[in-house]
């Protein structure tokens, strides 16, 4: 609890600006939704034939998962507040349209009949009878929409629209509960307060509504201005970082400390980040250095010349008893050593992740092209069990190891691919469920060994020192052997579009920092 308060106090400035962005997103989208949904609701109350298709359509919008809807917005509207507001606007439509429709159609027939019979015009019936009587129902719809929007607006952090989601998703990625709560608590309070304020409006005496009705849009515009005022002005490059990257020492924090990087940045999900960089919505992004999308979108990685990103070299991790039992295995598994550079791995990932080729096909093609492929030998009776984590690069490596083992030894291979994460793979290995899997040095250091900052600093990001350290620790603590690294380094990296980097003459992070300084 004290931790949380301290965290919130330290981050109060950030929380405040995220809160303003959140209020802005919610109220602009709500205002737009009211402007559109109210007339639509009135229209379908007048023309019942239209009610089913219109309500059906806005209902379908509501069923689209929020992340998917935000995803659809990227190609159309890019990233940032605009697509977020449009998505929130679409979500707010259903409750307002439906409640307006219900509110008006539930006005009792004798009342509207009397209104007509007394000679009220249709406009007078609407403004003096139907809307005032439907008002509580309409307000209930607006309240529902407001609460939904406060919730969905947290997801806006995924597409660089800001808001309290930045803390929430950063906290989830970093497993930092204080950070999650620093976003979640203000979001919950905001929902409650907004709902309460609207409930006050709902209870206003109906006869006085006409004048006060204008207060809603006025208030919404006022709240919206909070958000619009500090808009994305300034001309220099724009960076998009994942929530996790924003909170990591070997991420944004390190960039600021070590490189003195000071650039405009937004928080964005890695699912849309690469595409956004390609479409020039972002100039610099944080990614993984062997991600296939680097190639798909023609991005290059900047050299980490001050070594803030720890090395993530991949190597087979295998139980020592297995190596001893099958001495021929070690040399076979080491065949790949030094064969796959960053760019080769990127290309292989590209084929699997982007061109949707099977990992086995990609692995086989690679081995054949490098004259490493052997036809299967007649299998003996012993079996090696391979594991892999659940993403393309691991599948490719496992497929290669399977083929090599079958081609160079008489061992049978059983592949258990797609084990959820680091912890699952590692536990499977230590519990004799699998015999080996490919692991990354950085992950072993930070996640499995949970090395203290002093240790990490002592290794100073040197790839060999880190490799030797984890190898030694694994042997000592777990009876596990690290074989030779494959060669590529799948670490965090800053990326830019190739042509832009060329035009600005930027190849390393230091050069990027200089460029930004000079542009300012």
């Amino acid at each position, binding site marked *: 609890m004290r931790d949380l308060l301290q965290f919130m106090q330290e981050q109060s400035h950030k929380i405040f600006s995220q809160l303003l962005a959140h209020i802005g997103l919610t109220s602009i989208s709500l205002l737009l939704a009211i402007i559109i949904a109210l007339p639509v609701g009135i229209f379908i109350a007048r023309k019942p034939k239209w009610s089913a298709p219109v309500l059906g359509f806005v209902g379908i919008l509501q069923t689209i998962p929020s992340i998917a809807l935000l995803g659809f917005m990227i190609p159309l509207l890019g990233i940032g507040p605009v697509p977020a507001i449009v998505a929130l606007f679409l979500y707010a439509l259903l409750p307002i349209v439906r409640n307006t429709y219900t509110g008006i159609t539930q006005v*009792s027939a*004798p*009342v509207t*009949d*009397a*209104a*007509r*019979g*007394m*000679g*009220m*015009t249709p406009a*007078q019936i609407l403004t003096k*009878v139907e809307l*005032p*009587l439907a008002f509580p129902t309409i307000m209930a719809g607006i309240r529902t929409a407001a609460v939904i929007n406060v919730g969905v607006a947290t997801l806006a952090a995924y597409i660089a629209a800001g808001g309290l989601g930045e803390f929430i998703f950063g906290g989830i990625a970093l497993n930092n509960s204080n950070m999650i709560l620093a976003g979640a608590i203000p979001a919950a309070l905001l929902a409650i307060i907004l709902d309460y304020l609207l409930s006050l409006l709902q209870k206003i005496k*109906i*006869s006085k509504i006409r004048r006060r009705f204008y207060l809603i849009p006025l208030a919404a515009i006022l709240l919206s201005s909070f958000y619009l005022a500090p808009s994305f002005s300034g001309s220099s490059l724009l960076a998009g970082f994942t929530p996790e990257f924003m909170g990591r020492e070997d991420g944004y924090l390190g960039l600021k400390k070590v490189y003195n990087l000071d650039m405009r940045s937004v928080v964005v999900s890695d699912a849309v980040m690469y595409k956004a960089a390609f479409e020039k919505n972002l100039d610099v992004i944080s990614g993984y250095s062997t991600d296939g999308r680097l190639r798909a979108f023609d991005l290059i990685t900047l050299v980490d010349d001050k070594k803030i990103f720890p090395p993530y070299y991949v190597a087979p991790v295998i139980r020592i008893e297995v190596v001893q039992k099958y001495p021929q295995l070690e040399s076979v598994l080491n065949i790949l050593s030094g064969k796959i550079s960053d760019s080769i791995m990127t290309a292989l990932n590209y084929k699997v992740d982007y061109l949707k080729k099977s990992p086995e096909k990609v692995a086989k093609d690679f081995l054949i092209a490098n004259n490493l492929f052997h036809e299967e030998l007649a299998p003996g009776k012993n079996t090696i069990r391979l594991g892999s984590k659940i993403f393309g690069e691991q599948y490719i490596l496992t497929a290669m190891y399977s083929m090599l083992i079958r081609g160079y030894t008489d061992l049978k291979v059983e592949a258990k691919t797609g084990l959820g994460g680091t912890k699952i793979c590692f536990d499977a290995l230590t519990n004799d469920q699998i015999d080996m899997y490919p692991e990354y040095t950085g992950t072993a250091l930070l996640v499995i060994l949970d090395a203290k900052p002093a240790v990490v600093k002592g290794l100073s990001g040197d790839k060999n020192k880190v490799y030797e350290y984890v190898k030694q620790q694994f042997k000592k603590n777990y009876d596990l052997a690290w074989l030779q690294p494959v060669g590529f380094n799948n670490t965090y990296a800053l990326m830019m579009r190739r042509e832009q980097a060329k035009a600005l003459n930027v190849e390393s992070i230091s050069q990027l920092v200089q460029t930004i300084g000079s542009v300012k």
Partner: protein
Amino acid sequence: MIKASGISKTFKGNIALHPLSFSVERGENMAILGTSGSGKTTTLRMLNRLIEPDAGTVTIDGKEALLQPVEDFRRGIGYVLQHHGLFPHYTVAENIGIVPSLLKWPKEKIKKRVADLLEQLHLPNSYAQKYPHELSGGEQQRVGLARAMAADPPILLMDEPFGALDAVTRAAIASEFKVLPLLQEKTIVFVTHDVQEAITLADKIILLHEGKLQQEGKAADFLFRPINAFVKDFFETNLLQYQLQSLTLKDITASLKISRAGDPKALHSNQNLWEVLQIISTAEESDSFFFRGNDKIYEVNSELIFSALSHFKNSVHA
């Protein structure tokens, strides 16, 4: 005052009303009587253009209804609904003031008119600031009438005006409306399925069945000279009561004796025979009853009434 010529209406292929013509004179009360689905409400609603007739014309005071701006036209006709149709979000005063404010009367004038109407309808002035749901059914119906009469329209249309009330309230309100000075000069058309209401309140009745006019005339015409089997059957139950209700003392003077002495205050020549019988039957047997008609004083008792009734029937059938 009101003249309907050949008005008809079809809803989605179903004939709601075959061509119908009738006229209502100034100050006359006409009842549109019929069973459910007979087209009586359709007929009424065509008079203030809540339903536009497929064919035929409605003229009010010689001016064709369809040629006037519809809202202005409706503001000149009072309209009372079965389920009062009061605006739940308006106070009683605001409800009554709707048409005057549509007609842009000054506020003071509206306020005065509201107070005036509340008094005429025997509602306390404090009701002005109440909301409709705080009132009883009978009070709501009276406010509904006050609202319809607010701008003093010469014509009043009422759709089952007492239909939503319980039997006791219904009878009380109906007899109250009948003698209301406010309504005396008005031309009134009302829809009802209640025979007694039609007989006691209307000067003239039209009876509809399945969208067709069955008979038109005074109450006594239907009861003593039914035109067809439907009309006869329609009034069959309680026929005697209806017949007594359809005749007043002044209708039977020919069968009564002129009396030289006696107090005529107890009865009035406009009272119907049913009411008179009720008064006689609750009195002592020895009491005598008199009334004044054509400047003469007549004596009346139950025997005389029944003999007058059979005399009346015979004279009709002759």
